[in-house]
């Protein structure tokens, strides 16, 4: 029996999560797992496209694009795959907490969430720096 089925855990007391709180954790668990599955599907499709492109481009003048395209797909796929794995873990651990009520499960979930946001934060800073450099290059170049 999960926490959501156990009336003893409800009542809006501060000692335990309320029914609404548990429902929110369950929603988070559902959506994060959906996102992870969609993300893995997208990575798979991108790899399929990359393989398709490689076979078609071989021997054509466009074949010089194979290496950079493959490199971008592999780096983005690897990094994205790792983030999606963390998200999947977070969803599973949150669901496990709702089912078992064991606080250690939620501790594990929040630990995974911490790593996820740390990685996303670092990537966002790097992305912002790259975006700033390209914007100022565009503005400084007087292209427009």
């Amino acid at each position, binding site marked *: 029996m999960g926490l959501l089925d156990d009336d003893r855990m409800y009542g809006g007391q501060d000692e335990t999560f309320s029914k*609404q709180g548990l429902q929110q954790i369950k929603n988070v668990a559902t959506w994060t797992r959906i996102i992870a599955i*969609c993300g893995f599907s*997208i990575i798979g499709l991108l790899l399929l*496209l990359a393989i398709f492109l490689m076979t*078609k481009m071989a021997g054509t003048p466009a074949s010089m694009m194979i290496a950079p395209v493959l490199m971008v797909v592999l780096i983005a796929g690897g990094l994205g795959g790792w983030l999606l794995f963390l998200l999947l873990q977070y969803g599973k651990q949150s669901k496990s907490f709702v089912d078992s009520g064991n*606080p250690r499960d939620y501790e594990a979930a929040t630990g995974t*969430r*911490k790593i996820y946001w740390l990685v996303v934060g670092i990537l966002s800073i790097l992305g912002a720096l790259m975006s700033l450099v390209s914007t100022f290059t565009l503005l400084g170049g007087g292209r*427009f």
Partner: protein
Amino acid sequence: MFQEESSGGMSQGAAQNSQAIVLWLKMVAIINLASQALSLLSILIMMSSPAMRGMAGSQFVSFLVSGTISIVMAIKMLQQAAAIERYGQTRQLRDYESSLTHESVYWMIAGIVAILFTVIMVFLTFAFISFGDQLMRELGRGFRF
């Protein structure tokens, strides 16, 4: 701040883990908002150039959709961070639960976007594989220097 083993149904570790994401949530949200502002600036610069005005129009439409989603998600992240911070001060679980409400909305929006994006990607992949030969011929022509 979290001295007790149990903090409102959460272990001390879970409470500390939750506090640790506040800074990153704020940072990612602010970067997202700044990035949207930069996108808008780029579109306005493009609009000032007669040669680029057509492209800027289509970019503006795409900005309206993606920008709105990004801004709503960034606001949800800031609200989640504020609720976790409040929980750190009051140690009332209802404050943490309010952060969960914002978090679930955030993931729901991200999930809907992910589902739409996956459907588009499936369609594009199969379209690309079906009409790939024709596309490759065009690409090959384009790469003739």
